[in-house]
């Protein structure tokens, strides 16, 4: 066979694979394999085409053959690398390259690939050794740096014991010292070098390096190195030196990076006397007054020169004054307010003014009155963009300093109305802007929205939320791109129990990619009580899945059915490729960030909060059977081992409430409690416990049937504590995140599980039976036979061995608390309805009652098996279960029926009328609030007024949505009751 001829014939196969024509690639491979049945490359390509067409099982046959032949040629190795990546078999990739390298030790490309294979699996130790070898053999400098980087990464890994860390940093230090080249200007090498010195507290060495010509040259153009330098200087207490550098940069180079101003100010006077005393080098306290005078001069100069071009000079003067006052060194008490006035004069027409001044406007009574009367005395107009922005800032700044005594309903209502009026008055300014632009007046509507939210939390009257929705919906039409308006609406509509329009506004934000992780909490927080999945409406359930795509696509190509445990993670990590790239390009400064980014995304709290909500929705509409139980159990247990990171973005909503008051975000938190890690932990415990009892899997089998790896465990988690103990633990900080109703529910599930545990444990089939069952399931899912597993010998110990019937634990009556729970929830529900409780609260109680019924079903599923009951003589238990079930069904069913009634009372014309009349204060047309639609054109000023018609539309939207939420949930409950009767 001629190699060239073969190569020619193979090319079309590559083309087919590249273009995704896997079928024709397979055909091509088959044809050539007839001629060259032993050719590894062909087999590898066929395996790749197969795995890409989801034919995992078939692919494995070829995959194993190729691996067994220990290939060394580049093409085969590359193809196999892709195959194994698809399968999530990273450890095998490493082994394959290592084997190849053993056979061709002089092949540099192969050695590099082996190194990268280790990098992809995060195997820093092996990577370090290999890079050292590479350097010995091929002498390129970068291999030394690779090995240094690997040592640092190994040292920083949370699983590395503390005593090893120091050793590894010392190793890295030794390597970097001998490799260091004093003439090259390599920013990332310097970064790595200095970060090692920093980790070892070798600040003097770091300083010397950074002060060298080389160091200075690099720092002057690398933000990353300069950042590190700043930290070293700070740690060394080189405040004065740093201040000098900063002053020079500010004055000579006109650098306006605020970091320079901070350094300059730190050298002048520390932020507070406390920070001065903890030893950061301001030994010469006597010189402080001179330094202050000097700084004031420098900064005044900067401010004058910069004028309106840059605000740093003025802000630095403010910061200086604030610090001077903190040290009681102020000679001219009026200076702070002078500066505030000056700032407002100069930059009052910038949108950033409020955020800029916030840190400096906590004033004493006298100053406050001067500042406030200044603001009060300013001309107020919205005739130009600049005056409008000033007006907005005046409102924001004034509001910030409102004392609690002035936050009464009587005073806040006119403030809100006034803001709406100002908003409407300012609208003409933006009337010619295309609707892709934000309206300059938007902030006034946003402010009004916050005042109304404040009123709601003050008085508890939903009318204020109606006001907010009316104004914000109007504003949203004028400024469809304003994400702040959409987000405020999402918050308020959910509070009103109108999940559908809330979701619509959320979707208008066009949340994409990684934003799903940080923003989905705005709609998916406690979404299960808004989910109508039980009626077949999967809107919220699919929202959960869609928002979770980002986690899967970051670790894409992973198909279940990986039969070999990889060394660390089962998935292909997209981020890993970039870590490899950063090594290739020697961008060492990026690598730790990439790793931390990946960790935060993989172990995102929101990811698992959504997962939990999804499970809660799922069980309302899917049949509860062993497949669902086992799959969810495995997944939830994975989550239970994670160390979570909270990436949720709570900062994006502006904070316009007065200083010291709860923020808009807090005021609009559903049920007043934000589910976080503690909430997740409780629900994981509830579900894992129930599913575990219901499941036939035992630990050892589960371990063997696992798809891929367990997630990386953190050293900080309490993972070493036995599972049962962790499931039983109750921590106050976790309970604190629950609503009172959730706590009741938690107690119910605990009592239920405790009651039934002995019967589950007694009747659970032996592992061999469970294994056969699980194997069958896995096979039907993935088309792949799981690895051969020996059922553990039934030696009479352990969970689930066959017990004789006479061992059966005596049947005990279900504790009163179980039946009591349902009665209690019924009373809670009725009380809420009677007292006109909010719809989300009513739905919350209803959904927990339904969830309790579902968990009861999960817990008792096993005892529906008549022959099992007979063998184990559990008839009395089953009788008891039946009694409880029927009373639970009665209660839950009634709640459902009442919800339908509530739904009917929503969406009526009276409700709409009431809504509209609540908004009367800011309506333009004084028509009676009937349901007659007044066309917009009929009003004089056209779209620049809020009309009855506008509000009526909104009222309809909200009340219809409430109707749907209540009625739909009620109907869903009906279905659930029927399915679990």
């Amino acid at each position: 066979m001629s190699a060239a001829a073969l190569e020619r014939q193979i090319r079309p196969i590559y083309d087919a694979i590249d273009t995704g024509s896997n079928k024709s690639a397979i055909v091509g491979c088959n044809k050539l394999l007839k001629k060259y049945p032993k050719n590894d490359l062909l087999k590898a390509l066929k395996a790749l085409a197969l795995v890409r067409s989801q034919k995992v099982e078939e692919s494995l046959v070829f995959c194993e053959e190729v691996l067994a032949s220990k290939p060394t040629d580049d093409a085969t190795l590359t193809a196999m690398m892709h195959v194994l990546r698809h399968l999530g078999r990273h450890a095998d990739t490493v082994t394959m390259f290592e084997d190849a390298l053993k056979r061709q030790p002089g092949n540099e490309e192969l050695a590099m690939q082996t190194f990268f294979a280790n990098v992809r699996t995060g195997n820093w130790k092996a990577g370090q050794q290999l890079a050292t070898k590479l350097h010995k053999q091929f002498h390129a400098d970068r291999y030394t740096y690779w090995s240094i980087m690997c040592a640092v990464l190994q040292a920083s890994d949370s699983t590395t014991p503390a005593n090893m860390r120091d050793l590894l940093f010392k190793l890295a230090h030794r390597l970097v010292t001998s490799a260091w080249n004093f003439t090259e200007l390599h920013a990332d090498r310097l970064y790595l070098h200095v970060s090692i010195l920093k980790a070892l507290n070798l600040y003097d060495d770091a300083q010397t390096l950074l002060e060298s010509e080389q160091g200075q040259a690099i720092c002057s153009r690398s933000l990353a190195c300069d950042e590190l330098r700043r930290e070293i200087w700070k740690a060394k207490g080189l405040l004065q030196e740093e201040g000098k550098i900063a002053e020079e940069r500010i004055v000579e180079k006109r650098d306006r990076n605020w970091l320079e101003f901070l350094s300059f100010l730190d050298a002048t006077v520390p932020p507070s006397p406390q920070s001065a005393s903890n030893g950061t080098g301001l030994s010469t306290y006597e010189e402080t007054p001179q330094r202050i005078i000097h700084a004031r001069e420098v900064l005044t100069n900067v401010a004058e020169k910069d004028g309106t071009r840059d605000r740093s000079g003025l802000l630095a003067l403010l910061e200086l004054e604030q610090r001077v006052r903190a040290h009681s060194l102020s000679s001219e008490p009026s200076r702070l307010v002078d500066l505030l006035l000056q700032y407002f004069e100069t930059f009052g027409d910038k949108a950033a003014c409020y955020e800029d001044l916030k840190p400096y406007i906590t004033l004493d009574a006298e100053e406050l009155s001067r500042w406030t009367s200044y603001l009060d005395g300013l001309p107020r107009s919205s005739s130009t963009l600049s005056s409008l922005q000033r007006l907005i800032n005046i409102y924001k700044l004034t509001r910030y300093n409102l004392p609690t005594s002035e936050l009464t309903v009587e005073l806040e209502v006119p403030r809100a109305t006034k803001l709406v009026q100002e908003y409407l008055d300012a609208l003409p300014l933006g009337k010619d802007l295309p609707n892709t632009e934000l309206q300059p007046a938007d902030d006034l509507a946003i402010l009004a929205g916050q005042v109304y939210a404040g009123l709601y939390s003050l008085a508890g009257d939903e009318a204020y939320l109606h006001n907010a929705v009316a104004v914000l919906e109007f504003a949203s039409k004028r400024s469809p791109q304003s994400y702040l308006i959409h987000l405020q609406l999402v918050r308020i509509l959910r509070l009103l129990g109108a999940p559908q329009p809330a979701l619509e506004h959320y979707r208008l934000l066009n949340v994409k990619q990684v934003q799903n992780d940080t923003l989905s909490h705005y709609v998916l927080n406690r979404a299960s009580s808004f989910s109508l999945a039980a009626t077949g409406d999967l809107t919220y359930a699919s929202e959960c899945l869609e928002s979770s795509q980002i986690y899967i696509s970051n670790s894409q190509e992973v198909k279940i059915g990986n039969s070999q445990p990889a060394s660390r993670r089962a998935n292909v990590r997209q981020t890993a490729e970039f870590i490899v790239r950063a090594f290739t390009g020697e961008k060492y400064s990026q690598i730790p960030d990439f790793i931390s980014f990946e960790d935060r995304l993989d172990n995102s709290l929101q990811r698992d909060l959504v997962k939990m909500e999804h499970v809660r929705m799922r069980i309302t509409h899917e049949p509860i059977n062993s497949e669902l139980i086992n799959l969810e159990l495995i997944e939830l247990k994975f989550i239970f081992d994670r160390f979570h990171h909270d990436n949720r973005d709570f900062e994006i909503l502006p904070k316009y409430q007065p200083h010291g008051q709860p923020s808009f975000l807090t005021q609009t938190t559903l049920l007043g409690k934000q589910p976080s890690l503690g909430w997740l932990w409780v629900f994981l415990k509830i579900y894992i416990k129930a599913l575990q009892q219901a499941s036939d899997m035992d630990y050892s089998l589960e371990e063997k049937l696992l798809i891929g790896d367990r997630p990386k465990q953190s050293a900080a988690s309490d993972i070493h504590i036995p599972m049962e103990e962790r499931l039983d633990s109750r921590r106050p900080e976790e309970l604190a995140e629950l609503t009172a109703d959730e706590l009741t529910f938690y107690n119910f599930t605990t009592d239920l599980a405790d009651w039934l545990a002995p019967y589950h444990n007694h009747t659970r089939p032996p592992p061999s039976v469970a294994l056969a069952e699980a194997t069958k399931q896995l096979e039907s899912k993935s088309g792949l036979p799981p690895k051969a597993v020996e059922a553990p010998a039934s030696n009479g110990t352990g969970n689930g061995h066959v017990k004789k019937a006479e061992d059966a634990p005596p049947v005990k009556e279900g504790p009163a608390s179980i039946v009591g729970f349902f009665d209690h929830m019924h009373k809670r529900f009725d009380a809420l309805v009677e007292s006109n409780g909010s719809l989300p609260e009513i739905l919350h109680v209803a959904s927990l009652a339904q969830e309790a019924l579902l968990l009861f079903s999960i817990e008792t599923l096993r005892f529906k098996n008549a022959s099992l009951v007979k063998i184990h003589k559990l008839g009395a238990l089953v009788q008891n279960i039946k009694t409880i079930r029927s009373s639970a069904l009665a209660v839950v069913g009634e709640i459902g029926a009442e919800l339908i009634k509530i739904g009917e009372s929503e969406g009526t014309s009276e409700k709409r009328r009431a809504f509209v009349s609540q908004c009367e204060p800011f309506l333009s047309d004084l028509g009676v609030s009937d349901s007659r639609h007044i066309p917009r054109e009929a009003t004089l000023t056209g779209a620049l007024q809020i009309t009855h018609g506008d509000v009526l539309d909104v009222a309809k939207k909200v009340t219809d949505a409430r109707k749907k939420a209540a009625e739909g949930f009620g109907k869903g409950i009906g279905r659930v009751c029927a399915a679990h009767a």
Partner: protein
Amino acid sequence: MSIIRPFRATDLFTFNNINLDLWTETYGISFYLTYLARWPDLCCVQAAPTGPLMGYILGKAEGTSTDFHGHITALTVAPEFRRLGLARSMIAFLERASDDTYGGFFVDLYVRCTNAVGISLYEGLGYSVYRRVREYYGSLGLGPGGKDEEDAFDMRKPLSRDPHRRSVRPNGRDMIVSAHDVS
């Protein structure tokens, strides 16, 4: 109060206030990591001292011989922090790195022909139109705007290695090329 510091991978968790703006695209994670893994010194953010991001710039270095240059891929400032000179200072940062670190001959960028603010910003900083690229952008689907919306100006500014300003030309707006002739 704006701090200039390197763009970090973890900034993707906090850039919502910037990226929810209509004119700022949110790409897949690999887009950002591609830039950071190769040109971290051409990327930076502006942030408040307390953490929140205000704006960022992402750039790259590309081209060969006298075509070697810095490129502004993304430049954006959150609406509430506009008109404070943040964009100006980030552009200056990128120009300096393109000049000093990379030794590029010029900096260039693409901007929608309809983005008047963008164009005037760049013109004010010494950039000029080098050519007009047909259908460089997808339509925003926002109604009339037509060609201008999809066409891009390729704008350039020479750096110190191009003292004779060979990388720019005076009548660039009339030089029309199609999208496949570039990038």
